[in-house]
C-alpha cells in the first residue's frame, strides 16, 4: 500500500515531539544529571527543524510503501501486544499456547487452506516447540517465567 507522506516533515515532527516529551516534564534535576540530556535535546530540536525546512525546500520522498497487507500488519502488532498482556494474566505457558496457536493459524491462512484436521495435526508440533523452550528456560537456565493467575 502506498501512503502519501512527506517523510522529511514526518521525521521532523517526530523528532520535535520526542524532544518535547523529554523537555516538558523536566523535574528539578541537578546540573550534573541534566547537562548532557539538555544538550542532546537541543541538538535533536535543531536537526528536526532542519528536516522540516528541508521538507518544504527539497523534500526527500513524498510517499511511503507498506509492503504486504496493512490489515495483516495491524493484526500482527495486536497479536504481539495481546500475547504480552496475556502472559501477565494467564502465565507464560497458557498465554503462549493460545497466542502461538492463534498466530500460526492467522499466518498459515495466507498460504494454505487451514482445515480443522490440519490444525489438530499441528497441535503436537506447537506443544513440542513451546515445551522445549519452556523447559530450557525454566529448568536449564533457571528463569522464573510469569505464572499469572496460577501463581
Amino acid at each position, binding site marked *: 500500500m502506498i501512503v502519501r507522506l512527506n*517523510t*522529511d516533515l*514526518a*521525521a521532523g515532527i*517526530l*523528532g520535535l515531539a520526542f*524532544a518535547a516529551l*523529554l523537555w516538558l*516534564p523536566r523535574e528539578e*534535576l*541537578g546540573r*550534573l*544529571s*541534566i*547537562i*548532557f*540530556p539538555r544538550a*542532546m*535535546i537541543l*541538538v*535533536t530540536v535543531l*536537526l*528536526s527543524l*532542519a*528536516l522540516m525546512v*528541508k521538507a518544504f525546500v527539497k523534500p*526527500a520522498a513524498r510517499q*511511503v510503501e*507498506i*509492503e*504486504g*497487507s*496493512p490489515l*495483516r*500488519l495491524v493484526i*500482527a*502488532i495486536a497479536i*504481539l*501486544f495481546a500475547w*504480552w498482556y496475556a*502472559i501477565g494474566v494467564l502465565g507464560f505457558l497458557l498465554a*503462549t499456547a493460545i*497466542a*502461538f496457536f492463534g*498466530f500460526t493459524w492467522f*499466518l*498459515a491462512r*495466507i*498460504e494454505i487452506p487451514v482445515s480443522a484436521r490440519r490444525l489438530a495435526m499441528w497441535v503436537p508440533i*506447537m506443544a513440542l*516447540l*513451546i515445551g522445549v*523452550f519452556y523447559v530450557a*528456560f525454566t529448568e*536449564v*537456565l533457571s*528463569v*522464573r*517465567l*510469569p505464572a499469572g493467575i496460577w501463581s
Partner: protein
Amino acid sequence: MDMLLEALFSILTLEGLVTILVGVTAGLFIGALPGLTATMALAVLLPFTFTMSPLQGLMALGAVYMGAIYGGAFTAILINTPGTPSSIATTFDGYPMARQGRAYEALAAATISSVVGGIVGVAFLLLLAPPLARLAVVFGPAEMFWVALLGLTLVASLSSGSLLKGLLGGCIGILLSTIGVSPIGGETRFIFGMPALQGGIALIVALIGLFVIPEILSMAAQGRGALPESGKLEGGVGSAIRKMSKHIFGKPINLIRSCIIGQIVAIIPGAGGNVTSLVAYNEAKRFSKDPSSFGKGNVDGVIASESSNNVMVAGSMVPLLTLGIPGAPPDAIILGVLLMHGLRPGLDLFTETGVLTNGFILSMGFAAVFLLPVGLLGGRLIHRVVVKTPFYFLLPSIAMVTILGTYALRNSFLDVGMMLLLGTIGYFLRLIGIQAAPIVLGLILGIIAEKGYVQSMLMSIADPIPWLGLVDNPLSKVLAVLVLLSAATSLLPAWLERSGRMAKAKPDEEDKS
C-alpha cells in the same frame, strides 16, 4: 617461552581439547539464539566450571565466549537478528546475502573471518598486551568522550540515504540512553513515574526490539519467511568455502584492517564487540571501491564485522588481565572466575601463574580453530531449520524466543513491553527513513559520551572555559582531530554526489579507459 610451552602441553590433552570443543559448541548455540548474549552464555555456564580446575574452567569459559560471539552471526545472517550485540554490523550485508540465495557464502565468510579474527586476537594478546595496556591506561574522561563521538561519526554511513535522518536517529538513541539513573549525578531522569524504568532501557532490549520486531511485522504483513524459497542456496558448503577463502585471502587488506581496528577498539575498556564491529564495518565501507554496494549484500561487510568482533574476544582481555578492567561485559565474568580461583590481574598473572594465564590465552586460539568444523556443521543445521520451517511456524517461534530472551535478561515483564513498543515504533520509523542502526549506535555510545563529557566538565569546573577541558591534553586533541577527519570523510561522498562532481568524474574515467 618455557611457560608458553608448558602451557601448550597442559592444554594439549584429550580432556583439554574436549573441554574447548564442548565450550565452543555450547557457546555457538546459545549465541545463535536472539536475546541470549555472550555474557548470558558465560553466566549460564559458569556454575558448570566450579568443579573444574582453574585452567580447565577458564578454558571452557574462553571457548564459550569465542563460540557465542561467532554464533551471533548465524541469526544475523539467516533471520536479520543479531544473536549477540557484536553481530549488529553482520546483519547489514549478511541478511541481504541470504535473501539473494548466498546464505552459505555469508556463513562461510563469517566462519573464516571469525577463525582468523580469533587467532589474530590471541596473537595480539600474547605479543602486545603490555604496551597496549599502557596506552589504554591514559584514556581519561575527555578521551572516552572523543572515542564515543568517533563512534557516532558512523551515523553518516549507517543512515543509508538521509544524513539528517541518520543523525536524528542517533540523537533519539542517545536520549533513550539517558533514561534512568544519571551515571554521574545519580538522579533518576525521564522515568515518567515508572520505577521499573530506573534501570534504563537495556541495550539488548532495544536491540531485539529494533531489529527483530520490525522484521517479524514485515514478514507477517507480506506473508513470507525470513528467506525466499526460490533463492535459498546457491552451490554447497564446499564451493562456498572455496569461493570465500579465495575472496578473503586473495585480497586480505579488508581482513587485516578489520583485525587491527578490532584490536585497537578492544583494548579501550567498555567499547565492546558491538562498537568494534560497527567501526570495522564503517572503515570497510569507506575504503571500498564500491561503497554503495554495502548494505545490499557485500561480503566484505560480513568479513569486517565478524573478524573484528572475534579479535575483540581475546583483545578485550588485555585490560582485564593486566589492569583488572573488563574490556567488554563478558570479561567481567572471566574476572569473577579469576578472582574466585585466587588469581589477581596484574604482573603476577604473567609471572607467578604464567602457565595458567598463557594456557588460558592459548586455549582461546584453539577455540578459534574449532570454530571452523563446529561452525560449518552447526551452520548447516541452523540454516536447514530456518529454511525448511514454514514461515507460519517460524514467525511465532521467533516471537516466542525474543519474548523469552528479553524477559530472561532481568526477569522484567516491562522489558518485554518496551521491546515490543520500540520494535513497533522502529517499524514505522524505518518507513519514514530513520533506520534502527543509528538509534542503536546512539544508545550504545550515549552512556560513554555522557560519562566522559560530564566528568570532563567537573574536572574543569574552575577553569574560565570549562569545555576546553575536553581538549586539554595531546591525546584528546589527537582524538578530536580524528573525529573531525572521520566526520569530514563520511560527509565527503555525500557532498561530492550532491554537487555532481562524482557523476562528472565517472564518465571521465570511462573516457580514459
